């Protein structure tokens, strides 16, 4: 941090797992000790790592990290809230970017899947209805950046966050673009 200028305000970061496996969040945590540097620079808003229930309820978020594609109605509602409350929205991981392996269900009928797994379609209104197809998030909201990988390497998270914290457009180093 530059000693001659005042400390910049902390950035507000929200994260979420939609139709994800939480593996992208684990890969974020794989930045290890760099997490201590990170929490000096950012505050976390809604995230599986905090207790905040609603994204950007009091303060607009600077960065939203979205893991997972869209498989049900609640995913869509949460994604739209993230888009509305986050200045920069990042699709994180193969699922958010392409639908990922969960999208392998797209050639099957969702009713048939429910029938064969549960013997009936669970019908409590508390449960979000599954979508006909698993969708990548860019088909529902605009995304600003994407971090490919299943999961993205920890160094790719670190580079993206450092770029965004410095106000640079994130351009991943060649070795950090992986899809598997």
């Amino acid at each position, binding site marked *: 941090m530059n000693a001659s200028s005042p400390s910049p305000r902390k950035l507000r970061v929200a994260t979420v797992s939609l139709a994800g496996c939480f593996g992208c969040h684990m890969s974020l945590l794989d930045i290890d000790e760099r997490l201590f540097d990170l929490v000096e620079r950012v505050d976390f808003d809604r995230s599986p790592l905090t207790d905040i229930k609603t994204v950007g309820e009091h303060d607009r978020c600077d960065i939203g990290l979205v893991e997972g594609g869209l498989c049900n109605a609640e995913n869509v509602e949460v994604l739209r809230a993230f888009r509305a409350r986050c200045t920069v929205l990042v699709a994180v991981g193969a699922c958010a970017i392409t639908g990922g392996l969960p999208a392998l269900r797209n050639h099957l009928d969702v009713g048939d899947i429910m029938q064969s797994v549960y013997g009936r379609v669970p019908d409590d209104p508390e449960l979000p209805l599954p979508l006909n197809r698993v969708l990548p998030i860019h088909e529902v909201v605009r995304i600003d950046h*994407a971090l490919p990988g299943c999961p993205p390497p920890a160094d790719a998270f670190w580079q993206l966050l450092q770029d965004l914290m410095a106000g640079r457009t994130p351009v991943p180093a060649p070795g950090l673009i*992986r899809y598997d």
Partner: protein
Amino acid sequence: MSAVDPTFDLDGQPVALQPGDTILSAAARAGLDIPHLCWSEEVSGSASCRLCTVLADGRPVAACVTPAVAGQKVECRTASLATQRLRLLQMLFVEGNHFCPGCEKSGNCVLQVQAERAGMTELHFEVLNPERPVDASHPDVLFEPNRCILCQLCVRASDELDGKRVFAIGGHGIATRLLIDSPSGRLGDSALSVDDRAAHICPVGALLPKRVGFAVPIGQRRFDTEDTRG
């Protein structure tokens, strides 16, 4: 090489050419990389992927089938060609089901490595999610048509190298697909043998020899670099 050998200019580099050369074959011999998917020095050209598009004296041409001309100025590394290559790769990705995390060709796949080199981070277009049935009827070779990029390398390898004509391209527009020459249309009833060149030339995970998947450790696959986590 003598001083009178004919050359053309590729992004400022002189490239020696021999009779019958295309821009791509001359560049490949000189060790200069022009991105490509559907070209192989083993078989004739098809110019279907369009990834090797270059500017020859300012005109866009497919380097794999365009004869090299002495004194020509060829440009490959321009910003607009890089964007065009990225869009072509994104079109191929959304057109199929390219779920690399579950594909046994990952790390050995030419489509994947070209996309990585092109800096592709997202798909840009809507995904099409094709629903073509997998053909697992052959005892030794699997065909997953949702990964096929219609490069026709298997078609040409079967015709020109194996002398079998097992494959063809059929259909029109987005429904275009790889056809298999057998009474049932299935691979198991065709003349394909796992020893055929056509069974191994597929640049993606569409035609795969069975029972050899995931044998190579991450870090040692064909296109892995020292950055590849393992």
